[in-house]
């Protein structure tokens, strides 16, 4: 490389800078003294194996948390749908419970996702 050779030839790689006398003598000590104290609870560096174990544990916890959120969502959805079904049941109960066929009741039970006793209670209450 033409320009690089030119610079090398003319200027070399010498150092035009100087430092105050004895600067490097106590530099290490001065740097070490300027370091902030580390928190005594400072965690030692984790080994790769420990880090992997922590990572796996974190993944598991995240999966459990995600499953819980999913479950809560499904329960919420069920409750919401049950409310709607109950409203329908109440409206229909005005028609008269006696008019409902077994098939209708079966279909209501199925769609309301309620147990038999709860459904029975609602149907009974609507008559009063």
């Amino acid at each position, binding site marked *: *490389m033409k*320009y*690089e050779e*030119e*610079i090398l030839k*003319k*200027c*070399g*790689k*010498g*150092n*035009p*800078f*100087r*430092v*105050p006398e004895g*600067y*490097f003598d106590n*530099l*290490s000590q*001065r*740097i*070490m003294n*300027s*370091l*902030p104290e*580390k928190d005594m609870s*400072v*965690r*030692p*560096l984790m*080994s790769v194996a420990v880090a992997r174990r922590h990572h796996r544990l974190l993944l598991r916890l995240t999966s459990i948390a995600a499953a819980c959120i999913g479950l809560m969502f499904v329960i919420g959805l069920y409750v919401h749908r049950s409310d709607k079904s109950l409203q329908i049941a109440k409206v229909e109960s005005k028609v008269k419970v006696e008019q409902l066929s077994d098939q209708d009741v079966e279909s209501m039970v199925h769609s309301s996702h309620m147990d038999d006793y709860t459904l029975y209670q609602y149907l009974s209450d609507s008559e009063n």
Partner: protein
Amino acid sequence: MKFEENEVTKMLRDPELQRKAFEMIVAEYQDQLYWQVRRMISDHDDADDILQNIFIKAWVNIDSFRGESRMSTWLYRIAMNECITFINKKKAEQKVSLSDPDSDPVRHLESDSYFDGDTMEGLLQKALLTLPEKQRLVFNMKYFKEMKYEEMSDILNTSVGALKASYHIAVKKIAVYIENNV
């Protein structure tokens, strides 16, 4: 005592030995980092401050060093970031005080009692000050430190191609400056 990077990295993992290991790192790298910073910053006091900041940052973040890159690469990365931060800060201050003769880096360098400006090495240093800081960094690493482009790429997070181009441009500018100022 010879500096064995693998041994020192192991010592860093032990809280009891961590400070001792760091002391060994300081002893090993303080000179080369100082000179690298000094060539970038020129002023001794500023270089001294920056050097301390580099080691403080390294110490505070030592737990994040896992030996994936070489210790020198990691330290150089911190050093170069500190230099660029310092230069940018200085530039912002100089915008405020344009009338200050010290704001001209070449004049400031010539007035430094720890700088020998009458030599060709001094002229090269003045030429370096006319370069943008990234080009100056690249030139210093390649020309004085004879660092490989791949290592420079790790430190500066820049592609090898861009570094090569940067070096060639810097070399040409410096050659022209020297030609015009001999």
